[in-house]
């Protein structure tokens, strides 16, 4: 299972704090890229595509920033969030 978390404005707009998925339910391989995960999420929730496309977002896997060609495996925690605004 992979855990997907959304933060801040992105979470509010998607109206979804987190969800869990099985990679094997997305395709028959043991791994998928972040791009493939997003494609899957957009198929499940077509309105999400516009929300992701309209603003910049970052992806972290197991709490490290990654590019969206990063390969995901079972047990990973994937977070999507807007540009940071602390301080």
């Amino acid at each position, binding site marked *: 299972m992979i855990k997907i*978390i959304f933060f*801040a*404005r992105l979470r509010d707009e998607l109206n979804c704090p987190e969800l869990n998925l099985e990679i094997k339910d997305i395709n028959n391989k043991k791994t998928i890229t972040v791009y493939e995960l997003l494609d899957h999420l957009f198929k499940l929730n077509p309105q999400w595509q516009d929300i992701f496309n309209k603003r910049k977002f970052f992806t972290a896997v197991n*709490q490290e920033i990654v590019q969206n060609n990063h390969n995901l495996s079972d047990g990973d925690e994937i*977070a999507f*969030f*807007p540009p*940071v605004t*602390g301080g």
Partner: protein
Amino acid sequence: MEKTTNTQKPSQEVNSSIDVSVQVDNFDHASLYQNLAALKPTPGAVVTFTGLVRDLSSVGDVSGIFLEHYPGMTENSLIAIGKQAQQRWPIDKIIIVHRVGKIASDEQIVFVGTASKHRKEAFLACEFIMDYLKNDAPFWKKELTDDGSFWVEAKDSDSQAKQRWENKN
């Protein structure tokens, strides 16, 4: 440049001189300063920065803010920023405190303190840490007003402030 007989510290020691706290409670500036000033041998310079919640922003009067973070990643990000500062300058100790949750206007949000032998490194490291924190540490700020609450947009001026340091190396 002054001569120094100190050899490079091993990396695990470098980490032990960075204190990071992400907390709901307000912090006591005086005791954080004292923590740096009381180091032995006595540092020649302590620089502290404190960020406060402004009561006015582009959306009008702000009664306060709400700060969200990514538990675990946020703390690790602050430690990584502190380590980068220590790789650039000889800093004896770094303290970074950042509040989360609801914070009223005029209250303290963030503290960065640096202690070193001489003032220049302490000034530079303190500013470097704030510039990197603004761009890299996973915090998200929402402004609370009478007309509702609004997520704050990331500013180009903040990313330019970080870029400045990257151009220097």
